[in-house]
């Protein structure tokens, strides 16, 4: 049995034009060559030398041998930097949420009170997000000196951008019908906000905030490398002093923190959904 598929009058089936199919093949060839060229320039620019990996194996094995077994006697010494790392992330997340919520309300097209406020809020969010947290940390270390505080500030400012954008998108996707319905009951603007907008978006905002905390914990580990305190700073010091058994202990702690934060954050977000 043959299928007779109806076509609108005057149209041709796909691929019926000889010129059309030749152009399509040519375009595909060009795109394929372009992709290959991009991959080649990438390998050249990053100076990729797989043979170095093979020759470097000996050094890696030596490093791992010297790092084993981890020196668990140094565990009490690692408690304070670990707490610093977690608190840097918490500080950064709280600062980020507190600043990002009002910014997001200005930056969400459906609830913003004015166009100027909208563009100003979008500009702040874009700028704080575009500059990486590591660069913010370098700037704050220069401004306020070494320690966990510049780390917290760096994560806070960067989180404003990241959270501001996600919060604004969440608000823009909110169902506005209940909000308009509440406005028409004669409720005041602030009541419409607290009784309509907040309950509608709060679970999403908390979920995003928790996810950001999880990200910030990972980031705060790295910020120590530029002098912003926490476990990263300890890790760098031990590496410089060739204390590899201490380094392996710190890596285990980092692994536990990252995994634990990820699991707890995921579980809490699941409950909020």
């Amino acid at each position: 049995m043959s299928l007779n598929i109806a076509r609108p009058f005057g149209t041709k089936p796909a691929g019926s034009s000889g010129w059309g199919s030749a152009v399509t093949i040519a375009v595909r060839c060009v795109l394929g060559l372009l992709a290959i060229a991009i991959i080649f320039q990438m390998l050249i620019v990053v100076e990729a030398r797989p043979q170095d990996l093979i020759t470097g194996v000996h050094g890696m094995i030596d490093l791992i041998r010297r790092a084993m077994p981890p020196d668990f006697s140094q565990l009490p010494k690692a408690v304070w930097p670990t707490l610093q790392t977690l608190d840097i992330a918490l500080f950064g997340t709280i600062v980020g949420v507190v600043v990002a919520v009002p910014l997001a309300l200005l930056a969400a097209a459906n609830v913003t009170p004015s166009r100027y406020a909208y563009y100003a809020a979008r500009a702040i969010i874009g700028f704080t997000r575009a500059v990486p947290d590591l660069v913010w940390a370098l700037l704050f270390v220069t401004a306020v000196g070494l320690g966990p505080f510049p780390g917290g500030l760096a994560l806070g400012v960067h989180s404003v951008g990241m959270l501001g954008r996600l919060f604004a998108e969440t608000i823009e996707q909110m169902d506005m019908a209940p909000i308009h319905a509440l406005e028409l009951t004669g409720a005041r603007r602030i009541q419409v906000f607290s009784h309509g907008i907040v309950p509608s978006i709060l679970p999403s905002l908390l979920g995003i905030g928790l996810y950001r905390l999880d990200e910030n914990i990972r980031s705060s580990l790295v910020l120590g490398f530029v002098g912003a305190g926490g476990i990263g700073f300890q890790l760098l010091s031990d590496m410089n002093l060739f204390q590899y058994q201490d380094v392996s202990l710190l890596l285990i702690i980092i692994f536990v923190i990252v995994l634990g934060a990820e699991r707890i954050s995921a579980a809490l977000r699941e409950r909020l959904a």
Partner: protein
Amino acid sequence: MLRVNDLSLRYPNGKLALTDFELTVEPGELVAVLGGNGSGKTTLLRCITRTLRPSAGEIWLDETNLCALEGEKLRRARLALAIIWQHPSLVRRRTVLANVATGALGRHSTLWTTLGGLPASELEPARSYLADVGLADLAEQRAGTLSGGQAQRVSIARALAQRPRVLLADEPVASLDPEAADEIMRLLQRLARSERIAVLCVLHQLDLAYTYADRVVGIRAGRIAFNLPRSQVSREEVRQLYIHEAA
């Protein structure tokens, strides 16, 4: 009482959506508005709630001309004017009771209600409005878990919590099955009678208008085609409203 005098609305693109519209809805009366798509039914309700600004005419809510109000005065006037939409528009994550009580928010300006708290004095009345619509046992349930008919009844209870003098309904039964539709219309009729509320209800179902309305208003191309007691409305007149649309 709701009175609409010489109401006209012209959209920025020049299209006339309403022309010289005259309508009165007395307390205790249920008036059904019939008309084809784009005839101006919803536009009329939007003008009355002042979400659209009429080009000409007046809308009187008792002694207040809504067209002359702005800002805080308009907000206060809206307290007496409740509206039920085709889709119930509840805050899905809040409880049924909270949704009903928010209907009364406009009368409270305490710090507590500003911060998201419900006015304590409105909780008992909210429960009784829920009982009126037959949903007392669902008070603590999340609004997002309700069926379409239940959600619509909650939105009616919220409207009652407003203690309105005029109740507008924009196709309140359009998305409901016939049984639920009958239930909602019976409820609106009962509220009009017992609470002396003026009810203006946009409908598409002619049979519901014949059964529950005191008066039927037909709209065609933004003008009143007829405004008659339901017993005097012929099916032919109603059919003409929709034939015009098809043409």
